[in-house]
């Protein structure tokens, strides 16, 4: 990779341009994969595309100086959540499901609504009020993150763990097979 960067440097493309360009490529890839998630006929393919999209998002995090978060994303989201999805798909898949269409009747209306929403959101984004401050370059150190979690945000942290506990218990209860 560094060789490629050196190569590009030698022909006069600065590293920053390269990194910027690769961001846009990555962004497009994420969008494409996300789109494939929602339009794929095979739900299993959707899961795979989801995994890829989430990996892409992790890459985006890198551009935002959130390395820890990128790692956590890959580990938890892609590694656990998507796996879970695939388990569920496997358990509920049927042979003839492939022939059935995956999208329901309100596609057109939803498309319209979605596009409208998108337009509005971009409008908002474009018209954000200016404010002081700018991007920093410092990465949040893991130690510092841990410190924040344990000290400043200890309460939400504990609550989250309770939520996870509840989800766990609930999943077990609902997922239990009825005896008799």
């Amino acid at each position, binding site marked *: 990779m560094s060789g490629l960067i050196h190569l590009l440097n030698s022909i006069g493309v600065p590293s920053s341009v390269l990194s910027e360009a690769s961001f846009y490529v990555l962004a497009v890839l994420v969008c494409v994969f996300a789109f494939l998630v929602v339009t794929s006929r095979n739900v299993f393919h959707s899961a795979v595309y989801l995994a890829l999209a989430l990996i892409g998002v992790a890459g985006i995090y890198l551009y935002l100086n959130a390395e820890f978060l990128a790692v956590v994303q890959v580990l938890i989201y892609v590694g656990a959540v998507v796996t879970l999805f695939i388990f569920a798909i496997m358990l509920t898949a049927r042979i003839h499901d492939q022939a059935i269409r995956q999208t*329901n009747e309100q596609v057109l209306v*939803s498309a319209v609504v979605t596009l409208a*929403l998108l337009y509005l959101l971009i409008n908002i984004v474009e018209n954000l009020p200016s404010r002081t401050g700018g991007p920093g370059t410092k990465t949040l150190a893991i130690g510092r993150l841990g410190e924040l979690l344990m000290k400043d945000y200890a309460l939400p942290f504990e609550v989250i763990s309770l939520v996870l506990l509840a989800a766990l218990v609930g999943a077990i209860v609902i997922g239990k097979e009825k005896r008799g």
Partner: protein
Amino acid sequence: MVRVAHYIPLCPLAAAVVNIVIGSRIKKASSLVSVFASVVAFVLSVLTFIGFRNGLMSYAVADWIAIGGLSVRLGVTIDALTCLMLLVVTIVGTLIQIYSIGYMHDDKRFSRFFAYMSLFMGSMLGLLLADNFVVLMIFWEGVGVCSYLLISFWFEKPSAARAGLKAFVTTRIGDTGMLLGMLLLLFAAKTLYFSDLAELSQDPSINQNLLVVAAFLIFCGAVGKSAQFPLHVWLPDAMEGPTPVSALIHAATMVAAGVYLVARSYALFIAHQPSLIWVAYIGSITALMAATIAVVNNDIKRILAYSTISQLGLMMVGLGVGGFTAGTFHLMTHAFFKALLFLCAGSVIHAVHTQDIREMGGLLSKLKITGATFIVGSLAIAGVPPLAGFWSKDELLAEIWKNGHPVLFVLATVTSFLTAFYMFRLIFLVLFGKTRSELHPHESPAVMTVPLSILAFCSIFGGFLGSPLMHNWFQGLVHFGETHAVHAEGPNYAVMGISVLVGLGGIGLAYLLYMTKYSTVPGRLCTRFAAIHRLLVNKYYFDELYDVVFVRTVFRLSSWLSRFDLGVVDGAVNAVAWITMFGSYLKAWFDLHVVDGAVNLVAAIVGFCSAGLRRLQTGLVQAYLLIAFVGLIIIILVRLKGG
């Protein structure tokens, strides 16, 4: 001098009330109540007569009406005419009521009969005592009502009911005329008192023509009540009533009320000669016509009824030619012997249970008292001296001749001849000859024969009161103006002779035709003069004529009116009802379609909307989610636009 006159009508009226109220309880005793009341009335009449002779005059009893121009005072007239009439009516009435105790013995409405009789007596006596037209009219109507009630006493017989109605309606026609006459008199002369009538003709401020018309109209009432031509048709039919009723009302008293009316208002008539002459001519037509009908009739009571009509006609002739005294004298004698004749007829009917003289015969031997009194009465009416009828009839004929009416004289004489003839035809066919009845007749009980005897006595000796033998006591008492001076001339023997001749001649002819070998002559005459015979038997077709001209017309009119009422009036009411129904039908339609339609429309809209909105509940979460996002877009838009 006691003023008891006004109590005279009250006694029988009280008896009538008692009999009406408790009659069904006391049954046979009700007759005693009535008779007692009549006797008391008789006693009071005697007292009043004595009072009159001692100078008692008409007096007032109470004030009654005082409205505007009309003031009516209740009072009694006390003069010779009224007093003598009171005596006659009470005597005859009492005797007839005693007779009725026997005659009506088995009737189931015994007490009702006597109640009606007492009511009649009270009304008649009140009529005689009235001193003005209003009070007279009241009692006039009273006797009319009693006549109606008593004629149709046996109302289960349809003929009796019809006869009562016919009597009432026919006399009503006369009464209408009388009422109009009264009103005209009130309008012209401003008074209705009999005592004022004498001065009216002298008063220049009064229109005399109106008074003439009033007299004619008042006479109409007399024509109706006294069964004169042309309103005579009710009296023969009135024989449907019990015989005592016929005797009292339709022979002796009520029919005499017409004659009394003319006599009472004589001042009005005599001042206007046309009205008086009219009275005479009507009377003579009536007398002759009725006599001719009686000649061919075969019903014992109807013969007597036509005889009554005829004799009343003669009384009218007498009054009409100026013979006030003669007319009233005959009125009183006629009351006695006509009542007697009717009661005898009743006794005969009681014995043989038939009224057809062709089924009777040879009854003299079986019914001795009845037969003897019957002959007495017939002799009286035939004018055979020295019985009562001779004196009064002779007086009439003399008066007619004296006042210069030869035509009327001849007519009256012929009528007298016919009277004697048909009466003795009746006598010979009923009492003599072969017995044609199959029943075993027996004499009536004493309660019936005693009154017969008493009346026979009166018929024999009553006439002497007006004869020269008693110095014309009657004429001296009962007169109008200065008439009594005329009798100073002495009796007209020529007229007397003619009347006796005529009477005996009639009896003789009857004897010849019905008792001797010439008894086939009547039969041959009937076939020879069949047309005339038919005319007489059918009473000159008066009933048929009236039926066609009046009765049918009235029925047609009333059926037309009934149709009008049903069709137009009821139709109008029905139309209104129909319109109302139609209106309510419209309203119902409106209510159903428009109002309910509006309500239903609201419901339908709600249903439609909810049916539409219900589709939102797809049960699909994604649909709800879509809507939520649409809402989100809207909120964002609002926020963006709103700044």
